[in-house]
């Protein structure tokens, strides 16, 4: 509500705005993001975001690596949805080199990617709860299930975080023998965990009072600002790259696209919780359909050489549209690798979405973006 403008009286107490620096070290900035708030009392009148505290050149370094070596940088760029990023990258290489991965590899990839999406959203739920003032309880609950997922990943790939498991043409090695059973267990555990989170946060009156109606976004604005993924779906636009431009084998699964209504913070939260359940559905279906067979395309050389060309591959990662623009001029190294990071684009809309709210609202607004600084700064 715009208050009416009036000229201050001569004797009226004069106020000035104060600049408050938030970050790069601040518990609510999820890493090394920094923003300078200009506050009028408790109200934010201007916001200046500063990024780049973790700009460590994943693009430049990938250009100096072998095609397979560059997978590691994808993990470290998107360090919450590692499999999602790897998936996008290996697809780009496969598209350029004309490799068709075998069926079983595709299924393994889809299962792991969807579970990774859940793990990433668990992290969001935990951090969001802490932003909003829960004393770590949401973090504890979501990490309980996240650890279960990570255990499965560790059994499959041998690492807790930086998997480097997807390779151009398939996956590095086959999954363990009891993969199906373990996956089913994980799915069951996580499903119960999501119910717990529902009980703790979704119907919490304080969270509803804080988040509902906070900085709503229209679909037109969202598209203009470049919001993708859950941020876009919260505005009510039913757009998921897994449906709109099905890649890999996503056209074989049945799943819903959770959407919000007015694009506020609460809708973004709800969309993410809904997505966790849908990912579980996809993983279950993929588990049932997963065939036996080879896990690596045949006839691949030890050094992967990719013919000249370029491709822009986009995937739906937990934060939205993750794109890899890969230019090859022949040879064994990518000529140019550009990462289109969803959080980078969402963050550019932070100012427009936060000005006019309270300081506390700005914090949870930023939390609802679910930024990963590694991906923002690359």
């Amino acid at each position, binding site marked *: 509500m715009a208050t009416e403008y009036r*000229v*201050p009286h*001569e004797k009226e107490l*004069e106020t*000035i*705005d104060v*600049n408050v*620096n938030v970050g*790069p*070290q*601040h*518990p609510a900035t*999820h*890493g*090394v993001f920094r923003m*300078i708030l*200009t506050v009028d009392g408790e109200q934010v009148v*201007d916001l*200046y975001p*500063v990024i*780049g*505290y*973790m*700009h*460590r*050149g*994943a693009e*430049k*370094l990938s250009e*100096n690596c072998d095609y397979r070596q560059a997978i*590691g*940088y994808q993990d*470290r760029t998107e*360090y*919450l949805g590692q499999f999602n990023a790897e998936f996008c990258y290996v697809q780009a290489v496969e598209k350029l080199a004309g490799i068709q991965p075998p069926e079983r590899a595709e299924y393994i990839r889809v299962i792991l990617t969807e579970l990774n999406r859940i793990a990433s959203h668990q*992290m969001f739920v935990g951090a969001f709860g802490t932003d909003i003032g829960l004393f770590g309880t949401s*973090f*504890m609950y979501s*990490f*309980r299930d*996240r*650890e279960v997922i*990570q255990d499965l990943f560790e059994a499959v790939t041998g690492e*807790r*975080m*930086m998997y480097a498991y997807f390779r151009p043409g398939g996956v590095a090695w086959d999954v363990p023998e009891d993969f199906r059973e373990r996956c089913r267990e994980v799915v069951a555990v996580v499903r119960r965990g999501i119910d717990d989170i529902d009980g703790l946060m979704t119907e919490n009156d304080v969270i509803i009072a804080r988040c509902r109606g906070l900085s709503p976004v229209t679909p037109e604005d969202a598209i203009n600002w470049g919001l993708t993924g859950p941020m876009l779906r919260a505005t009510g636009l039913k757009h998921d790259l897994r449906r709109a431009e099905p890649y890999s084998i996503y056209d074989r699964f049945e799943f819903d696209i959770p959407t919000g209504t007015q694009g506020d913070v609460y809708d973004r939260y709800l969309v993410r919780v809904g997505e966790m359940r849908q990912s579980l559905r996809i993983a279950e279906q993929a588990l049932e359909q997963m065939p036996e067979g080879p896990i690596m395309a045949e006839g691949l050389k030890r050094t992967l050489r990719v013919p000249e060309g370029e491709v822009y591959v986009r995937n739906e990662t937990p934060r939205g549209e993750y794109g890899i623009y890969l230019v090859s001029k022949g040879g064994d190294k990518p000529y140019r690798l550009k990462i289109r990071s969803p959080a980078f684009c969402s963050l550019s809309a932070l100012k427009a979405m936060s000005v006019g709210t309270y300081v506390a609202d700005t914090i949870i607004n930023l939390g609802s973006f679910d930024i990963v*600084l*590694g991906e923002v700064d690359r």
Partner: protein
Amino acid sequence: MPEKKLIEVREIRDDPREAISDVVPEDIRHEIKKLKPAEVWPSQGQAPYRQLLPGIFQVPADWLIAWGRKSSLWPLTFGLACCAIEMISSFMARHDLDRFGIVPWASPRQADVMIVSGTVTKKMAPAVKLLYEQMPYPKWVISMGACATNGGPYTRYDRVLQGVDKVIPVDVYVPGCPPRPEALMDAFLALQKKIMEERGKIGR
């Protein structure tokens, strides 16, 4: 003249865009002055309390104070990069660093340990140094992961600092990319050992 006053208000307000030009803004870059005289704290290999206590109490006091310090190491909540996720993991229910009395604090003034969890870029380095300087003595630093130790996979990029030890002194290095929570726990145990061994001398 109300109009004139309005413009004045505008001028007083420092434009945030101007504050960006430097890496660390003026408003977090105030000098830190210690309450004690400067020569007391960095004493010659002796903790300051030893100069006050009579000789017979010194050994038990050393032990007691070192025990207190090692048993309540409060790290600074300070996630830099990927390793921050593993750092958070180790504070969570499965690994639970609170068992050792390790709870994270957000303000550097109340922290004892700084976990440098991730790549330090040249843009971030002044902030890391400032945070280290804001922490009160005695303070320790754990360099977590390959990136913080020497730049790790990113070491050949231009804007990456090749190891946080170029900026601040480091007590414990944890290898790994990222280190598992168990490795971080081990680092804390090593730090506790170090504190016990250094007892009576801390007060750098």
